[in-house]
């Protein structure tokens, strides 16, 4: 063994001192021969005989040297280096081919690397600086018989934390926001409401000050402390080294800054970078909807847990479920039918991991397609070259190169191409790191934070892709070497025929594969496009045109309930008086936004909640004439009026699904419903509309008058035929007139809100569309290449046909029919593949069948046009054949 390593070291060392060792060897052998000559001369031979005899008994100087060299270095490596050098030389001689091939591979590998980096940075390791993310899990509530998820309530969370033993830690990280004035302008800033163990649990140490201390998440508004982000510290506080202990007003409450988070830590929310953190005890200041820490029915928390090492997610889920079961028995009013579910980080159903997961899953498949198409293209180019190089290969075989050696040479060349492609691809991925953000509109002037992450795992995967490409590329030309026969090589190229099935079949089948793969992508893009149209075109149950909304952040400005109420009343009067405004109303929650509606267990006279059903229903706090302003039809009864205030009897408006569920279709008007211990009289019945997502199914929902359930945070809805920009100017003026320190947020239409809430679908369409177009382009290049080559190789046949009287039209027809035949094969194959694969789009499709004939038809049409374009130039060339010249050759 020791000898083996010693030998290996010697051989390795020899690789780097070839020249010196070569000189050494020359000298040693020369001295040997001369000694032999001298010895022979001294035996009495003539000098010539002595030399001849010396050489004879030595037995071949060059062979000895060759043997010696094999023993000296590492022949494997040396020949590989030789092959690579030779390959590089070949590519330099043919730069057009090399650049085209490398460009194709750069696109193919780059698309893969970019998507890998997004998957890594958004799904697998979304939280830079957080330790052991592989053991991090997301937690949500689930409700029996209902798809989707809810948050957790604080009391449930505390019980889980206390009762579970298989976890290192549980922590809360709930997104919130405030308005900070940065310089002279106010900016919306995102932050997190967290449990007191947050910074310890994620293993992040503040660079200044401290994290939160045990007990700081207990007590109503008891601990106004905050940890700020590095960016906020640098930007807003100019990197003040004395920052610890200073105060900052957040949502009207003075908070003491106790810590500064390290650079590169953005919190734990996929999509937005967090700028500040406050303990759960301050929840009431940030979350609208009142004090929730003692309310088991208020499910507002997004939570995470870290497993102990070695614990599986199944074991952990069992433990969690048994605790949830106990809570169900102990607190039936709030917890009946409720469970808690664990999710691997990449499956996190909330934040933007949830919205992007289906898109990224599809993208992983799509980029594999793009890679295959790119490889097929380059493979085709290599094949053309291998025909051109047949002479070279034959000569090498004839002078004694082994077939293995030639195959090795071909794979080396493929490796060079894919290595360049990989480097280019990683550059592409690096440039595309932040590309996803561009597809999402900035909200309230703040853009999202969705960085790709190029770490060693991404590099490793990209290297794997590169090797895969090498194999694919090397394979075809390598198989072709079997066909080289030494005798045939001396003969001139035999003439081909345009329609022949001869040796072009490999290239043709590559093109068929390309066409079929890009057909699949086109079908996918078509389906997604239709789905997006359906989503954006479907009625959400409220008017999307002529209704716009905005908000004034009274919470951050420190308004109390009384001042806020006065402000809202006055602003409403002023807005209604604006020319062109038909109506206006305040409501707490905006439909289709990320925040959560209030929810509560309810009871209804004469309705026994079945044991399997939950009675928790979501509701919104709205002002007078909300339904009319929003364009939600009122089926019967009345809207809220100004008279429904805190002094009047509590009332509610229910939606159709709620009426059907709780009153079994009877007219609910005049009935009673108990909400948080208060009985409310139902005065109106509204049609269903969409509340949290355009894609949700109908669910029970009700409205209560804002006046009877007042919250400071509320959105202002305005119905007007005017453009939002026009209204925004007037609105800002009115707000300023009331309080010069305030300005409204961006004013957008409800259509814009629908569009924004469906932007993940737009992202999917855009990405699949872009890559589909890319794939189509590559396929067209491939098709063109095959047709152009076929025409150039069959001039004799074309000439013959012309001489026999074929007109230009016949020749064009000949070429086109060949091209269309290839396409038809590809489309057929692609259609079969599509039918099985488009089901994968399921989660992204909305009211569109994965086998929608229109998508298939459109893809077919696009493919046909592309094929005709690709065949045009070869067909024109065919008509330019000179019969006399072609036949003479």
């Amino acid at each position, binding site marked *: 063994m020791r*000898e083996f390593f010693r030998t290996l070291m010697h051989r390795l060392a020899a690789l780097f001192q070839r020249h010196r060792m070569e000189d050494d060897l020359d000298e040693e052998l020369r*001295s*040997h021969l001369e000694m032999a000559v*001298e010895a022979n001369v001294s035996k009495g031979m003539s000098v010539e005989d002595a030399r001849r005899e010396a050489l004879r008994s030595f037995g*071949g100087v060059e062979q000895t040297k060759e043997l010696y060299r094999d023993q000296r270095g590492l022949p494997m490596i040396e020949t590989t280096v030789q092959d690579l050098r030779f390959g590089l030389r070949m590519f330099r001689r043919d730069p057009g081919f090399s650049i085209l091939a490398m460009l194709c591979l750069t696109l193919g590998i780059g698309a893969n690397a970019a998507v890998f980096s997004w998957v890594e940075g958004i799904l697998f390791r979304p939280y830079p600086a957080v330790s052991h993310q592989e053991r991090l899990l997301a937690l949500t509530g689930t409700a029996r018989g209902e798809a989707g998820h809810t948050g957790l309530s604080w009391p449930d969370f505390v019980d889980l934390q206390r009762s579970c033993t298989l976890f290192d830690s549980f922590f809360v990280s709930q997104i919130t926001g405030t308005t900070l004035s940065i310089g002279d302008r106010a900016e919306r800033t995102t932050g997190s409401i967290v449990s007191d163990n947050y910074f310890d649990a994620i293993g992040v140490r503040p660079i200044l000050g401290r994290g939160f201390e045990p007990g700081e998440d207990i007590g109503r508004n008891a601990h106004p402390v905050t940890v700020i982000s590095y960016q906020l510290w640098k930007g807003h506080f100019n990197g003040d080294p004395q920052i610890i202990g200073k105060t900052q007003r957040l949502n009207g409450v003075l908070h003491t800054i106790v810590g500064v988070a390290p650079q590169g830590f953005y919190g734990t929310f996929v999509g937005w970078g967090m700028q500040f953190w406050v303990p759960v005890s301050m929840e009431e200041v940030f979350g609208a909807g009142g004090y929730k820490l003692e309310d088991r029915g208020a499910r507002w928390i997004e939570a995470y847990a870290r497993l102990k090492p070695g614990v599986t997610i199944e074991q952990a889920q069992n433990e969690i479920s048994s605790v949830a079961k106990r809570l169900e028995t102990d607190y039936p009013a709030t917890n009946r039918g409720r469970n808690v579910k664990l999710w691997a980080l990449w499956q996190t159903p909330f934040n933007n991991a949830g919205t992007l997961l289906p898109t990224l899953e599809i993208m992983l498949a799509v980029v594999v397609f793009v890679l295959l198409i790119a490889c097929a293209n380059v493979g085709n180019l290599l094949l053309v070259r291998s025909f051109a190089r047949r002479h070279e290969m034959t000569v090498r075989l004839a002078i004694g190169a082994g077939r293995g050696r030639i195959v090795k040479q071909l794979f080396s060349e493929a490796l060079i191409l894919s290595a360049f492609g990989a480097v280019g691809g990683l550059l592409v991925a690096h440039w595309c790191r932040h590309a996803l953000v561009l597809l999402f509109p900035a909200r309230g002037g703040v853009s999202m934070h969705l960085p790709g992450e190029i770490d060693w795992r991404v590099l490793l995967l990209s290297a794997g892709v590169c090797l895969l490409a090498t194999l694919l590329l090397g394979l075809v030309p390598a198989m072709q070497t079997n066909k080289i026969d030494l005798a045939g090589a001396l003969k001139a190229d035999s003439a081909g025929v345009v329609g022949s099935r001869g040796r072009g079949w490999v290239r043709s089948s590559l093109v068929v594969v390309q066409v079929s793969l890009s057909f699949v992508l086109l079908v996918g893009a078509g389906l997604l496009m239709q789905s997006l149209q359906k989503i954006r075109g479907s009625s959400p149950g409220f008017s999307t045109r002529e209704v716009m909304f905005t908000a004034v952040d009274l919470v951050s400005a420190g308004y109390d309930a009384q001042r806020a109420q006065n402000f809202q009343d006055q602003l409403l009067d002023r807005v209604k008086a604006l020319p062109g405004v038909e109506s206006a109303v305040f409501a707490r929650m905006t439909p289709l936004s990320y925040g959560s509606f209030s929810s509560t267990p309810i009871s209804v006279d004469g309705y026994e909640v079945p044991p399997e059903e939950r009675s928790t229903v979501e509701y919104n706090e709205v002002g007078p004439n909300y339904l009319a302003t929003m364009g939600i039809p009122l089926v019967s009864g009345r809207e809220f009026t100004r008279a429904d205030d805190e002094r009047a009897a509590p009332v509610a408006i229910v939606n159709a699904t709620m009426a059907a569920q709780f009153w079994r279709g009877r007219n609910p008007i005049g009935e009673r419903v108990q909400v948080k211990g208060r009985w409310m009289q139902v005065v109106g019945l509204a049609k269903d509309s969409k509340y949290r997502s355009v894609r949700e199914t109908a669910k029970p929902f009700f409205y209560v008058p804002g006046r009877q359930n007042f919250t400071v945070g509320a959105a202002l809805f305005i119905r007007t035929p005017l453009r939002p920009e026009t209204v925004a100017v007037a609105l800002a003026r009115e707000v300023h007139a009331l309080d010069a320190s305030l300005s409204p947020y961006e004013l957008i239409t409800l259509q814009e809100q629908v569009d924004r809430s469906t932007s993940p679908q737009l992202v999917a369409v855009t990405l699949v569309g872009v890559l589909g177009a890319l794939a189509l382009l590559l396929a067209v290049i491939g098709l063109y290449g095959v047709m152009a080559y076929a025409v150039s190789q069959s001039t004799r046949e074309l000439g013959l046909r012309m001489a026999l009287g074929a007109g230009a039209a016949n020749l064009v027809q000949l070429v086109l029919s060949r091209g269309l035949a290839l396409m038809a094969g590809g489309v057929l194959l692609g259609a079969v593949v599509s039918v099985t694969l488009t089901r994968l789009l399921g989660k992204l499709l909305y009211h569109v069948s994965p086998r929608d004939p229109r998508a298939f038809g459109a893809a077919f049409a696009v493919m046909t046009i592309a094929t005709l374009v690709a065949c045009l130039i070869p067909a024109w060339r065919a008509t330019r054949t000179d019969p006399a010249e072609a036949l003479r050759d």
Partner: protein
Amino acid sequence: MPSSKSEVLQGTLDLLVLKTLDSLGPMHGFGIALRIQQVSKDLLQLNQGTLYPALLRLQQRGWIASKWGVSENNRKAKYYSLTRAGHKQLDEEVESWGRMSTMINRVLRTS
């Protein structure tokens, strides 16, 4: 005519080289080749060239070392000498060769 000279058995060349260096002390390639042919009474057919890859192999394994020197005729030549590991290796190979030839002789005699 059947060849009266034997080809050098695979693997025995190493042993011959080690033994030669053991008895001659430091020696150059030509000297080693000459010595092997003389001692074997020219019964061994040795292409002198094949000696050099063998010398390199022994060197890589650390059994011999080489150094440039000057020959008796004032010629520059590379001298090889046994290392400590080489001595040990020679002892082992001589012993195993002995065992092997005894065994083969016994087999040949009994059948």
